[in-house]
């Protein structure tokens, strides 16, 4: 009987071999895939196993951590969570992570490959793993001025402030906001209820929406700055103070519709400076249709339109359409029709003017730090484009400064500081039935000629009477306090 016995032995050997092969397949070939599967709860357990690194503003953490019971050892806490939520995003034991918390998760948890060597050392010396820090470019004072200003208005809105010479994001506020601390845990009683309350279907104000980066609004008259830049840059008009060829009333080409101005303002053949000061639709509408779709689109693209920006948190792409009829180009050039921009985008327009024509890539992460506070990665300012010459930029600066000195933007004046700005009141809805958005974009210039801050403010107020809304009335004071905060910080 021994021959079949040997064969049975071989058969049993094959059974074991099949198991060994399967083991290697699972634990070697497929191991990484299984180990890092997001559904694998170990991934979340690992994420919350050690205190998470902090997000830092002005050298102070705006985040913290707290020990919890259960599977997850620590949860995230936030200081002034609602104010900083558009910067930090959230990290929640139950609902995952978003924005900066998600993008820099590797550094914050300490799992990043760049920390591998350090982690291995720590493991050998028996130290617990720690997360690294994310140092932001933001300014606490500017952010507070922005958020408090929006909160005082009590309307939905957003503020973005940039440092024009570097592209550093100084303020990034959105209102209404939410405190990410309330959803950081995984308690069904508190966190899940808070989470459900924040969802858009339960809360029409949509507090988790990051309006600074993820909402696009028709920019209205603030877009005229860009149109003026195109007029000067493409040589349609030579300077700010010569008469333009602007009839009044003006019928848009290819239509029988007259483009209206807001009220009875002196726009006939007005200079660019005068047209910007009183915000003439006719002058800039005609500039746009004279230049044509292609040139306007080219200029808009140079300022960053049509592209998503990564700060590294992604912003939506702002819109300027192609293949439009001349009348549509005219409307688009005064920030109506399809034109729509994120608050970040309009801050970039203002910053490029203030920085003498050079647009710097906006960013909010200055530095990534190891747990030991050593720098792992530092972000260097990067030139994004040069939408106009320094000369054009300086002409535009003087025009925007006129707007604040004696035009629609007088509410933004700061004593001892030169301020340039532009108001906007964007209409939207069928037959402009909805309440318009109030815009203000501006920059401040100190006595040495450098510009430390450029701001964009947008306010959407569905409750206010329509006439009351204008960029100068609602948005300019907020821009002013943000600029003041930055200028004061510099002194």
């Amino acid at each position: 009987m021994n021959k079949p016995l040997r064969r049975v032995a071989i058969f049993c050997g094959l059974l074991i071999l099949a198991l060994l092969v399967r083991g290697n397949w699972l634990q070697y070939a497929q191991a990484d895939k299984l180990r890092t599967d997001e559904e694998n709860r170990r991934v979340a357990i690992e994420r919350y196993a050690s205190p998470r690194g902090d997000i830092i503003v002005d050298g102070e953490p705006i985040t913290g951590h707290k020990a919890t019971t259960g599977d997850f050892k620590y949860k995230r806490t936030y200081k002034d969570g609602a104010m900083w939520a558009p910067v930090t995003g959230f990290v929640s034991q139950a609902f995952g992570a978003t924005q900066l918390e998600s993008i820099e998760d590797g550094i914050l948890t300490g799992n990043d490959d760049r920390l591998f060597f350090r982690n291995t050392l720590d493991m050998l010396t028996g130290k617990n793993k720690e997360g690294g820090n994310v140092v932001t470019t933001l300014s606490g004072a500017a952010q507070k001025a922005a958020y408090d200003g929006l909160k005082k208005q009590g309307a939905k809105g957003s503020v973005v402030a940039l440092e024009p010479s570097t592209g550093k994001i100084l303020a990034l506020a959105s209102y209404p906001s939410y405190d990410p601390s309330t959803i950081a845990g995984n308690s069904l009683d508190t966190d899940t209820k808070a989470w459900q309350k924040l969802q858009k279907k339960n809360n029409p104000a949509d507090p988790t929406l990051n309006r600074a980066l993820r909402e696009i609004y028709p920019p209205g008259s603030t877009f005229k700055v860009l149109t003026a830049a195109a007029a000067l840059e493409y040589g349609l008009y030579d300077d700010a103070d010569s008469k333009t060829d602007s009839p009044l009333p003006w019928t848009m080409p290819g239509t029988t519709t007259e483009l209206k101005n807001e009220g009875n303002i002196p726009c006939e053949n007005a200079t660019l400076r005068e047209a910007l000061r009183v915000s003439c639709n006719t002058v800039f509408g005609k500039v746009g249709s004279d230049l044509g779709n292609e040139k306007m689109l080219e200029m808009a693209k140079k300022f960053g339109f049509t592209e998503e920006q990564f700060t590294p948190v992604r912003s939506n792409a702002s819109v300027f359409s192609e293949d439009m009829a001349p009348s549509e180009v005219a409307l688009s050039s005064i920030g109506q029709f399809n034109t729509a921009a994120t608050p970040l985008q309009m801050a970039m327009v203002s910053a490029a003017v203030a920085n003498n024509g050079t647009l710097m890539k906006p960013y909010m992460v200055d530095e990534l730090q190891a747990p030991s506070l050593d720098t792992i990665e530092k972000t260097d300012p990067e030139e994004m484009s040069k939408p106009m010459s320094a000369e054009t930029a300086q002409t535009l600066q003087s025009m925007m400064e006129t707007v604040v000195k004696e035009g629609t933007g007088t509410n933004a004046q700061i004593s001892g500081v030169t301020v340039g700005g532009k108001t906007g009141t964007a209409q939207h809805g069928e037959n402009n039935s909805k309440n318009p958005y109030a815009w203000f974009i501006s920059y401040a210039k100190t006595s040495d000629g450098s510009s430390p801050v450029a701001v964009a403010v947008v306010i959407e107020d569905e409750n206010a009477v329509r006439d009351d809304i204008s960029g100068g009335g609602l948005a300019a004071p907020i821009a002013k306090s943000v600029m003041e905060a930055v200028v004061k910080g510099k002194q």
Partner: protein
Amino acid sequence: MSSTTNPSPQHTSTIGAIGAPSRRNTELALLVFAVVIPVFAYANVGLAINDQVPAGLLSYGLGLGLMAGVGHLAVRKFAPYADPLLLPLATLLNGIGLVAIWRLDQSKRLQASSTFVEAAPRQLMYSALGVALFVAVVFFLKDHRVLQRYTYISMVGALILLLLPLVPGIGHNVFGARIWIKIPGLGTLQPGEFAKIVLAVFFAGYLMVKRDALALASRRFMGLYLPRGRDLGPIIVVWIISILILVFETDLGTSLLFFGMFVIMLYVATERTSWIVFGLLMSAVGAVGVASFEPHIQTRVQAWLDPMHEFELSRAGVQDGIVHSEQAMQALWAFGSGGTLGTGWGQGNSDLIGFAANSDFILATFGEEIGLAGVMALLLLYALIVERGVRTALAARDPFGKLLAIGLSGAFALQVFVVAGGVMGLIPLTGMTMPFLAYGGSSVIANWALIGILLRISDTARRPAPAPAANPDAEMTQVVRP
């Protein structure tokens, strides 16, 4: 089968056993390792979970050492020529299984479950009972051929054991499989584990008598020796019983195990490959046939093909009359997360598997905490047990012993394959346990008895032949003995 005129190597091994060393000291040395390794693992778990050497370390070490010592002394006394590897292998697996069970007892997640009981103390008791049964087998079973007398009683006994889970009031259904019985006051029992041994005795006794008829009376067709119609009777009866187990107890593993064991023993008894072909065809027909109408089996197959889908159904709480379980996917994640070297004892999260983490799914805990390296080592330990079993069958001098040894080791190998393959997602999951490693009284007690019987057979096989008579003809007689 060796020919009488041409002595082959296996023949010499039989003869060579004359005067062979007993290897009892080898066994003792190996047993020291088999006790020390689990003790280290135990200390490791305590250090990882509570940052201190567990308080029970000494008593655990002594307990395991005592069991090993008693087993060893019994073998030394009553089966001195038995295989030296089997006892250390079983002790090591049993000891390391206890550590894993104790480790899962420390899990906060499992403790939060309403059905949580501390399993390690019970398993220790079962292990002691198992070793006691092992000693009893070695002591009372002076010669395995005695079992031959109980061939038909074994058949009746096996049938009763297999049918018990179906008896209303005693039968106990756990997550769809009816392979347990409930004894009031004592807990639950998996009679299939004992039936495995009793059936092997029956098959061995029956086939030893019938093998010539089954092997010789056949017609040749297409290169295969086809058995006569009436000789097909036994295999068809066993097949039908396996199918009935599958249908009524809805357990693919038990069914496969018994049928597989029978086919292996039939093949060894008759040396006819045609039986294997028949066996494979019949099990394929049976499995596919039953799976086509049995929803429990279908779910198992679906969970095997797409464990992630089953996980999602379970998470979503889908109520369609079938128990959806996330265990299969959780087990795969445990294996994957362990990687090559594992997380280390006590540092994994295999308790996420939840129910049956310390029994059917215990291999996943090893996979996560001692990694691929550890799992391969465990599989090789099982392979060694099977190898020693097959070697015992080769060395046995009587056909009954050969058949019984190969039946027991074949069943053991099949069980390891079915359970480990199920947990690793190689084949659909079944409700059986890893011998010695898993929590479960029936399993550990029955497998100790199995090792006892194998040791008895190997002792008989390796025992020096009675002192040769002065007559040189006696030598001749031995050489021609089959």
